[in-house]
């Protein structure tokens, strides 16, 4: 279990000084956060299943139960009584749910969401005793609410009456198993007893094979060792199963498993309302007629299910299945390792250094090869270099892969926020997600959460009209916010699209003029007007009126995205809705860079922003409003001279220039450089020193023995040039 691991760790650094305490809390928090993350997703699924399917997967309830259980254990380990208590009560509710003691419709279930929120909030305040006190009050209140909201399920007829199950077997079922059996009967499924005999030495494997086969078509309600005339070296199990398929079909499926299937209940057809209360139907076709527990020792129910080989305790059923919460959670945690992202960064850095060394080797190899005296040695070295290169690429891909997390993580957070917003604002909004499996660097995901949250909140707060307004406008009363992520080359694009009121360009314009951001004389295109919402001046709510207010802090979104080397774009049409598109690179760890030369200087341009490179004649460059443009297949491409951008001396030799076409979001800019000097894998490093920010420079990279090369901040150049275009 999660808590166990922490225990070992905290025991290792026993001297409980304050510093180690806060460190231990850190461990607790990260561990708890992991569990909470899981909890949230599962609760969201639960909510879905409750509304859409009307039946909740038992495994899901169990999983949620286990999460609460782990939280409780974890909190206990760290002596955090308040939140431990809360987890305990959540666990109670969930235990009631899985045992059918509490109805799925109970209001207590709705409280679980809030309990998780409260949990998250308490985590944040762990080291603040004052806030802790406050939280303790909230927790006590929440516990009370949970307790009073627990509701027993409605009385129901006894489903098990008339089921030809041996009473001894029934008695051997745990409360949970009995509940599952009832539930399955209620759902009108086939119930059967599957007997199978295994060699003792290999029974675990055989049993799990059998269980897996059954789970494909139904549920294993219980696994019981059964007595019988099996030889000493064998052990016999009875599996109580519930399936959608008939017993005959089940038998044919289990053919390979050499199991005996005995039908206990046949699902009634639509015509029959009650299950036939017939005695045990004809037993299975198996040759080895299974000895029923009742025949053997009905008078001592406790021992009936014990096999000769079943060890010491009477009703000691082997816990082979994943039923026991502790066993399961122990297993699931041990399969994943939580790693501090900084450690991955270090690893990535090391890989980066290796890449640089590899580049250096390539250099040596080509120098050796160019000399006839050492050409053979050079060729050998070059071959070794190629092998090294291949392995290094695998290593690099492996480390990169570890950093990748699916967008689902963010989506869950968003859906929680929207659920809460919906509760508070009574707007009818459906949140739709697409591309949850799209993967992104963990570090970028972290940086993306806030901007994305901001955009979604904006859509909810300002773009979505009230239900009545929507109906009046001829739209469905329920609004939709669609969030979709997809990969485009080396970038991931996340689009937030709503069918709200759209952004009114006139209102934006008026507000911008009022702020002095735009001259009333200026002619702006529709797009340029919309882009004004990203200006810092338009960043508070009252400045753009309520119906069009998309301006809330969008400048922050833009700058956050720019810091990631990404971009944000907006399109909108009044009355129909808006779409905000965030574009970010997949990873910042190792990137392919195009090395370009200007005069005697070299720069690296992240290749993920390079669309293409062109060699153009000077005569092809046209001028428009003081800017240089290029006709690129019919479109006007704005040109920027890197030399001018950085006040460098260019030495374009004559009539030709290289154009590096940069793409960021929807924008395109052509960068004029003197030379192209090939591609390199690079690790972008921050530039340390007294000057903290260098406009236009994203960092630097090492190129083998050739010292540092500056990395161009493409998003800066692109947005700068478009700003200048607006100004022009």
């Amino acid at each position, binding site marked *: 279990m999660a808590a166990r691991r922490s225990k070992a760790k905290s025991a290792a650094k026993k001297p409980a000084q304050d510093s180690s305490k806060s460190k231990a809390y850190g461990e607790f928090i990260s561990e708890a956060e992991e569990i909470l993350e899981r909890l949230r997703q599962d609760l969201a699924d639960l909510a879905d299943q409750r509304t859409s399917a009307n039946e909740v997967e038992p495994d899901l309830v169990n999983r949620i139960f286990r999460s609460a259980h782990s939280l409780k254990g974890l909190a206990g380990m760290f002596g955090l009584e308040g939140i431990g208590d809360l987890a305990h009560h959540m666990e109670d509710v969930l235990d009631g749910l899985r045992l059918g003691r509490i109805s799925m419709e109970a209001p207590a279930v709705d409280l679980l969401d809030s309990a998780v929120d409260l949990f998250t909030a308490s985590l944040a305040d762990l080291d603040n005793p004052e806030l802790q006190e406050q939280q303790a009050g909230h927790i006590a209140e929440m516990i009370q609410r949970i307790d009073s909201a627990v509701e027993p399920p409605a009385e129901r007829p006894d489903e098990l009456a008339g089921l030809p199950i041996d009473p001894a077997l029934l008695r051997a079922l745990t409360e949970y198993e009995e509940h599952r059996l009832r539930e399955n009967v209620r759902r009108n499924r086939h119930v059967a007893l599957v007997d199978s005999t295994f060699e003792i030495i290999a029974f675990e494997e055989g049993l799990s094979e059998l269980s897996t086969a059954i789970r494909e078509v139904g549920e294993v309600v219980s696994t019981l060792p059964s007595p019988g005339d099996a030889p000493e070296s064998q052990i016999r199990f009875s599996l109580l199963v519930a399936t959608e398929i008939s017993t005959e079909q089940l038998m044919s499926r289990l053919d390979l498993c050499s199991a005996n299937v005995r039908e206990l209940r046949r699902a009634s057809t639509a015509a029959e309302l009650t299950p036939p209360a017939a005695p045990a139907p004809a037993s299975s076709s198996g040759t080895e007629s299974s000895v029923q527990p009742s025949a053997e020792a009905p008078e001592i129910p406790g021992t009936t299910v014990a096999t000769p080989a079943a060890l010491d305790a009477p009703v000691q059923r082997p816990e082979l299945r994943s039923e026991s919460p502790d066993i399961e959670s122990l297993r699931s945690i041990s399969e994943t390792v939580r790693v501090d992202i900084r450690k991955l960064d270090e690893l990535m850095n090391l890989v980066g*250094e290796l890449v640089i060394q590899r580049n250096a080797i390539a250099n040596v190899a080509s120098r050796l090869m160019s000399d006839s005296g050492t050409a053979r040695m050079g060729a050998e070295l070059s071959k070794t270099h190629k092998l090294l290169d291949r392995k290094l690429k695998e290593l690099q891909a492996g480390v990169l892969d570890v950093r990748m997390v699916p967008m689902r993580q963010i989506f869950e957070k968003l859906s929680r926020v929207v659920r809460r917003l919906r509760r508070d604002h009574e707007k009818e909004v459906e949140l739709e997600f697409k591309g949850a499996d799209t993967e992104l660097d963990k570090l970028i995901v972290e940086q993306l959460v806030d901007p994305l949250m901001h955009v979604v909140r904006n859509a909810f707060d300002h773009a979505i009209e009230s239900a009545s307004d929507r109906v009046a406008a001829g739209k469905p009363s329920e609004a939709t916010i669609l969030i979709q992520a997809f990969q485009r080359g080396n970038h991931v694009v996340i689009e937030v699209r709503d069918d709200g009121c759209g952004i009114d360009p006139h209102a934006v314009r008026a507000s911008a003029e009022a702020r002095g951001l735009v001259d009333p004389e200026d002619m702006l295109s529709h797009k340029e007007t919309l882009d004004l919402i990203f200006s810092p001046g338009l960043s508070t709510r009252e400045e753009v009126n309520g119906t069009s207010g998309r301006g809330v802090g969008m400048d922050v979104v833009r700058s956050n995205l720019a810091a990631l080397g990404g971009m944000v774009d907006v399109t909108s049409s009044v009355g129909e809705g808006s779409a905000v598109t965030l574009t970010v690179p997949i990873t910042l760890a190792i990137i392919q860079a195009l090395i370009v030369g200007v005069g005697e200087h070299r720069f690296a341009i992240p290749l993920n922003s390079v669309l293409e490179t062109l060699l153009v004649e000077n005569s092809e460059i046209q001028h428009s409003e003081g800017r240089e443009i290029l006709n690129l297949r019919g479109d006007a491409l704005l040109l920027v001279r890197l030399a001018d*951008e950085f006040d460098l001396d260019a030495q374009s030799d004559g009539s030709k220039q290289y154009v590096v076409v940069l793409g960021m979001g929807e924008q395109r800019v052509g960068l004029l450089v003197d030379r192209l000097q090939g591609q390199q894998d690079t690790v972008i490093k921050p530039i*340390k*020193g*007294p*000057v903290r920010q260098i406009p*236009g420079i994203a960092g630097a990279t*090492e190129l083998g023995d050739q010292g*540092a090369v500056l990395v161009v901040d493409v998003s800066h150049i692109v947005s700068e040039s478009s700003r200048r275009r607006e100004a022009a």
Partner: protein
Amino acid sequence: MSGAEAPPSTVGWENLARGAANLGVDDEEDVELRRELLSFRLGESPYAIPVERVREIVRMREITIVPRMPSWVLGVVALRGEVVQVVDLRMRLGLAPCEPSRRSRIIVLHGDDEAVTAILVDAVEAVLRIPEDSVSPASGSELGAVTELCEHGGEFVSLIDVDRVLEFCAGRS
């Protein structure tokens, strides 16, 4: 000191006691009175910085020029996986610039908060242990970066307040 006054019973004790006494002196006087400084030259003039701020000293290497930087930042160098700005200390202090020579060195400094900066100096000289009483406040220096002077080997060494230099730099960015 009490240790020194106690009658020594053995040679070992005597040494221990003397050691303790010296430690006491260190605590009260010597540490305060002596500073460890790294001295270097800008042109003919000697300068010094506290040794504990020095991370490493490296030979002159290729400096990559960075656009849009203040003139006193020469550019950046790659140092074992790090890329660090190099401040031309001459220009920083308002002295005439000078071409780097074979004796030129880059001193890599670190601050309290992982901040790293490199300064280019004309030559590195020695580590000095300067008694406090030979340090005197300097007045009217360039930028206020030279806050104190000390006498060593018959000449005045300018002590540079590293934080003042770096802080000022950061402020200008």
